[in-house]
């Protein structure tokens, strides 16, 4: 991506977590996965994201544990850097930069004293990167040596063999094995098709950890186990076949006793190595398996799935956790929307569902079942799809359109209106309108009502009408709530309406009928005026906001962007651009136009009233951008830089054709993020177990210089044969444990008090806390307490009273 001023396009939130194979930490407690421009560290037990390792400036293309240190991990990125992280604390330890290459994926192996990172570059060469061992944080990787050239772009098609002695790489119909020591490579070819029509193309490769055996997966679902591959002719392979379509991932367990394979069937198959007739299955994992990884101790497996999900499996028996990212199907029919209440991003999720995804927390909140029918996983079936959805301004109503197309004339349509239920904190179906229109619905729009109660919805359709739907109290005085019904049916010269838009104060409705834009007043459904800029049908309509609300913008198919002044009903300006999407920022006057130009998309941000665009970004991404959304910020930015001012109120997220969710980030913001990540302090304790609480505190006291007992660590470090007898030591040891009570220092005491109060505030009465506070109950003895007349107990009593009093008072005031 191109650097553009100090505003950059980044992957932030909702990125693919199944892009590359995740790495499991040695103790199986953490899962590291590449997600956009950061490495996310998940807990395998709770599915929560602990933290993100930030610092890369482009898409991360590989994450691997460092073999020599199980608390460190490498990551590599398209920005040409390899970084070494302490992933438990999220600290960047070192990073190596190479100006020459974009690293596409990364394999790491140590086979000499030096560390080598093998990286596959954009030219699909495999190069060995020599990382110098020096203290500086940033090192320049100068020594690059090409190992293999012209390898597959799929990282699963290359693998290191036993103890890094050789590297295996598969091209479509060729297996190449390169031995590092002998500098010799062997190639084995397969025929394109065998007699039975199976396709022999290689899809993935893995090597046995202790034996010389290569497992390769193929397009027709076969797995071949290659042996004797250090001979040009006497090589041999055996074939396993269970999968009915391509094998997408293969892994050996760390001991090499089992082989795991997965594919489209979404079944994890476990083959016994050398007894391949025995196999175990873990079916119904949901979504095609794209990657399999195994923790170094073999306790956990994890599978990445095509629906942006990572499943954590305990030893091929049980699914223990599911980490779900933003669900990305093969295509998205609805627009990107922001749910006004939770500020969650809403779009198509699972088939027949809408997903609510929190961009702030980067987490899937929930899926809302719209179709409410069982989805049948079979290709070629026509099933109901959610094609359109809209929220009203306050977030109390959601309108959805689902359609099923069996044949062109038999289109089935449902318009559903969902009310937000405060008790359930979810949307509840209010009205289902089957066949709301005779043709496909082209646009759906709620008016922007500021006082809260929305009672109108406008839908336009290919049948030549637009309909206004009204929330009406039930005619019969039964105990049903209000429901929606059709209020007005509008048409214009039997033209097909393509888009509609309410003005900012909802006093006007603009409906684009092919070349003609009609402006209606919703109060009386009167046609006020028509605007037209032939030739070319109007594709997108958008009213200006705030001070620019007098402007109406329209994009036409004849590559024009027109701006009409509604006060004069005349064309204010027109410019020639092929706008594929027009968006208005709800919190400012800014508008964003995504223009398709020469195979890629450009972005212009402008105010309708001003001649110059505020911001422009050429060649944002390849292909058309058809989905984008302004997401209001939680905290306003106060940037005065001209080019980034438009980002002060909202983020702009957009979805590329390859279903990547991208956004813009300013330099200042980025600096803040990296700064915050560097502030993290090294702490040697990881888990807050009861044992740690007890011992850790004790250690604090031990480490205190005023604490008299320095002998204990010395005692533990002494060789046993020079120590006095155990009976003598025992009493000393017990003594040493009691010392903290006998000689508390002033600071120590204060600290303890603070801790104690904290504990009380938390109002927890666990056993653990009581045990910790036990030393407090002991008489403080001759500790130098000169000033306070009150004893400790008295102080505590007083504090408790104080607190009680306060809450009681508070209750009175309320």
């Amino acid at each position, binding site marked *: 991506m191109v650097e553009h001023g100090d505003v950059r396009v980044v992957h932030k939130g909702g990125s693919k977590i199944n892009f590359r194979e995740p790495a499991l930490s040695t103790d199986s407690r953490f899962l590291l996965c590449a997600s956009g421009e950061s490495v996310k560290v998940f807990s395998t037990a709770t599915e929560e994201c602990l933290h993100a390792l930030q610092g890369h400036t482009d898409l991360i293309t590989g994450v691997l544990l460092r073999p020599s240190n199980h608390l460190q991990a490498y990551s590599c990125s398209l920005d040409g850097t390899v970084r070494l992280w302490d992933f438990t604390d999220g600290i960047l330890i070192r990073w190596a930069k190479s100006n020459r290459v974009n690293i596409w994926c990364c394999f790491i192996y140590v086979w000499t004293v030096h560390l080598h990172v093998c990286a596959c570059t954009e030219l699909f060469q495999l190069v060995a990167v020599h990382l110098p061992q020096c203290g500086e944080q940033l090192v320049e990787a100068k020594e690059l040596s090409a190992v293999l050239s012209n390898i597959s772009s799929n990282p699963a098609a290359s693998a290191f063999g*036993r103890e890094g*002695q050789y590297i295996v790489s598969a091209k479509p119909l060729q297996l190449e094995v390169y031995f590092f020591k002998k500098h010799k490579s062997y190639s084995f070819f397969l025929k394109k098709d065998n007699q039975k029509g199976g396709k022999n193309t290689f899809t993935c490769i893995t090597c046995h950890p*202790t*034996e*010389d*055996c290569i497992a390769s997966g193929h397009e027709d679902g076969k797995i071949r*186990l290659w*042996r*004797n591959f*250090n*001979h040009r*002719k*006497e*090589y*041999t*392979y*055996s*074939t396993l076949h269970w999968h*009915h379509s391509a094998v997408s991932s293969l892994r050996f367990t760390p001991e090499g006793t089992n082989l795991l394979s997965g594919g489209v069937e979404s079944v994890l198959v476990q083959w016994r190595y*050398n*007894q*391949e*007739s*025995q196999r175990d299955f873990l079916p119904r994992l949901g979504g095609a398996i794209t990657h399999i990884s195994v923790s170094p101790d073999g306790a956990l497996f994890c599978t990445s799935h095509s629906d942006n999900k990572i499943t954590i499996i305990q030893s091929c028996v049980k699914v223990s956790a599911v980490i779900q990212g933003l669900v990305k199907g093969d295509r998205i029919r609805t627009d990107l929307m922001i749910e006004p209440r939770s500020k969650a991003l809403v779009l198509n999720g699972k088939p027949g569902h809408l997903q609510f995804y929190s961009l702030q927390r980067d987490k899937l909140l929930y899926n809302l079942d719209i179709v409410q029918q069982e989805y049948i996983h079979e290709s070629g079936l026509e099933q109901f799809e959610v094609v359109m959805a809209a929220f009203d301004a306050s977030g109390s109503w959601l309108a959805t359109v689902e359609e099923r197309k069996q044949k062109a004339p038999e289109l089935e349509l449902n318009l559903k209106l969902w009310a937000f239920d405060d008790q359930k904190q979810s949307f509840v179906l209010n009205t289902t309108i089957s066949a709301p229109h005779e043709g496909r619905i082209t646009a759906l729009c709620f008016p922007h009502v500021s006082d809260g109660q929305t009672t109108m919805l406008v839908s336009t359709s290919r049948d030549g009408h637009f309909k206004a739907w009204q929330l009406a109290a039930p005619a019969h005085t039964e105990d049903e709530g209000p429901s929606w019904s059709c209020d007005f049916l509008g048409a214009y010269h039997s033209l097909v309406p393509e888009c509609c838009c309410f003005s900012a104060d909802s006093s006007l409705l603009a409906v684009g009928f092919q070349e003609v834009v009609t402006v209606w007043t919703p109060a009386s459904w009167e046609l006020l005026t028509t605007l037209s800029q032939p030739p070319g049908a109007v594709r997108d309509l958008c009213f200006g906001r705030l001070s620019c609300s007098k402007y109406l913008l329209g994009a036409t198919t004849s590559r024009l962007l027109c701006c009409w002044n509604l006060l004069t009903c005349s064309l204010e300006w027109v410019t020639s651009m092929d706008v594929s999407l027009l968006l208005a920022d709800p919190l400012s006057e800014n508008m964003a136009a995504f223009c398709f130009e020469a195979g890629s998309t450009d972005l212009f941000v402008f105010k309708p009233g001003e001649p110059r665009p505020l911001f422009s970004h050429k060649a944002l991404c390849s292909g058309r951008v058809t989905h984008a959304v302004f997401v209001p910020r939680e905290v306003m930015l106060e940037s005065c830089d001209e080019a980034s001012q438009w980002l002060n109120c909202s983020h702009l997220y957009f979805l590329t054709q390859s279903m990547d969710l991208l956004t813009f980030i300013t330099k200042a913001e980025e600096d803040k993020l990296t700064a915050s990540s560097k502030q993290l302090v090294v702490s040697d304790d990881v888990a807050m177990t009861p044992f740690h609480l007890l011992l850790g505190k004790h250690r604090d006291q031990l480490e205190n210089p005023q604490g008299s007992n320095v002998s204990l660590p010395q005692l533990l470090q002494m060789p046993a044969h020079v120590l006095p007898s155990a009976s003598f030591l025992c009493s000393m040891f017990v003594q040493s444990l009691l010392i903290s009570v006998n000689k508390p220092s002033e600071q120590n005491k204060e600290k303890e008090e603070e801790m104690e109060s904290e504990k009380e505030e938390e109002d927890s009465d666990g056993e653990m806390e009581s045990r910790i506070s036990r030393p407090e109950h002991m008489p403080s003895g001759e500790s130098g307490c000169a000033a306070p007349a009150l004893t400790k107990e008295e102080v505590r009593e007083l504090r408790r009273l104080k607190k009680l009093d306060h809450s009681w008072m508070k209750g009175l005031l309320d």
Partner: protein
Amino acid sequence: MGEFVVHRVRFFDYMPSAIRAMAFNGSTQRLAVARGDGAVEIFNFADNYFQEKVIPGRSDRAIEALCWVRGRLFSAGLSGEIIEYDLEKLRPRYSVEAYGGPIWTISSNSQETLLGVGCEDGTVKMFEILEERIQFQRNLDRQKGRIISLSWHPSGAQIAAGMIDMIRIFDAETGKSTLKRSSQNRTAPKTHVVVWSVAFLSNDTVISGDSAGKVQIWDAVTGTLIRNHLITKWDVLGLAVSQDESSVIAGTSEGTVVQFQALASTMGQENNQWVRTRTFKNHTHDVRALVHTDTAVVSGGMDTQLVVRPLLDKVEKNTQESALRKILFPHKSLVCCARKAGLLLFQFPDHLELWRLGESRQAGDRLPVMKNPEKLIQLQNKGEDHICCSAVSPCGSWVAFSTVSSVRLYKLQLSNGNISIKKMLLRAFSAFLSFPGSSQPIHLLSASENGNWLAAANTDGQIHVFNLHKLKVSSYLFLHCTLPVYSSCPTAIAIHPTTGHLLSAHADQQIFEFSLKLKEYTAWSRSLQREGLHPLWLQRDTPITHIAFNRNKPAHVFLHDAFMFCIIDQSLPLPQARKKLYNQMDLKTISPQKRMQESHAFKICKMFQHLLSIHLLDDSSLVVVERPLADIVSQLPPPVRQKKFAT
């Protein structure tokens, strides 16, 4: 090439017999195949897999095992006898009763001094191999239950025996059983497991294949199971080990052959493990017999085919050696035609059938049969011996056949519907053919049409021509000439009726023409040798089994193998090796002008498949005897049921 009226005969009910056992002699490259009807066939692997010799079976002989000892062939079967064959006279030399009930297996030690047989009564009997015969030496410890399979340790000190539910290892010196391994089925202990096959390797490893579908690898010293490979749901019927003991193949009831290889699990180390590698599926039924040669896997079974599957890591790729071969039909003609009378004689193991051809009077591409073919006689052979060969005279009034012990001649009289048959008495042979310097059997005979010449070929490749004319004068066959010996065995010989040239086709697909008058190769034959045959011709994998001539067009020679029928026009130029060898169907599609350019001496027709015989009748109509594979398959018992994906 001309047009012919073709009798397309499909009523020859030839049914090959299932393959029961095989043995391969590596030093002579001969494979012995025992069929279900007791016949033993010898294939020469060095000479294009040609079926050199056939020892006809007997109806009471059921061969279970074969064994080569220094070029001597032994067989044993359910009759309880051990038979040694005379490979020159093509009949059993002697048989020795083992007195242990039916014999299931026979195996010789690698020193080739002892022959071990496994009997129904649970004894392993040792026979000493003497110069002229074998002599019983002793019994090993008698066991309960039959001995199904035997394998000698290469040192000859131990012998492993596969039994029901167990494998035993005997000390060959003392005869004591040293080790017993139970290979009982743990999942279903009630059912018995038959150890169909064992193999004893020199590193004290025993490999067994059993009826539970497992190939198990045992340590013979400690008797522990090292590895267990479940390869089929049905039986593992046979095992074969390569010469260097790096590869083992196992045949199953599903028709698959599974290869196991001893591979080093890590490079450069000696810790070899037996790993299942390749699976070959060339059979539809049980694979009963297996042989692992140095370069190929040879398998045969219930579906009667002999399949030679080369191991691609041992042979050069894309050569003739690397092609898969299936041997379906015998390499000699079982059909004889009376070309004047329009009769066909079919030879079966125990009877002959004489058929009259059908008739049709219409013209056109497809001729409807006006008169159905008619079976005139079924001539049943008396006695147990099977028929070796048979012939009918061109006029159709004489029929002769022979068994290993006798020759019979019948006179037929066909007069408007009445058939009479009369057995003729044969005097003792008045003349003996003898080939100087060779004791190999004569396998081809061909007389010239005028009855002057008789050509005979033996399996050493010698072809002699005798003058029959002088036979009438003296009772001594006068040797006219001897052809130069060609390295490959002749598969068909014939003497031209007008020119008197002898044409011979050989197993390596070469063709020679020899002038009997001048006693030298003809100019055509020399030019053929000079220019060489077309590569596509040489790559065919079935031998030419019959040569015939057209009286009306002396330049035309009719040849056929199992998959094509060819007329060689000796007047046309020979095909160039570089050019495409068009067959007649392809020639029809190209333009006439080009057709002229492309025309060559070899006119090949592939319209008829699985050809058993082609004959030219005197009325210039062709008789084509086909045996479609589907007919053979339909007569086989149904194969074991297998679950197929998506069915």
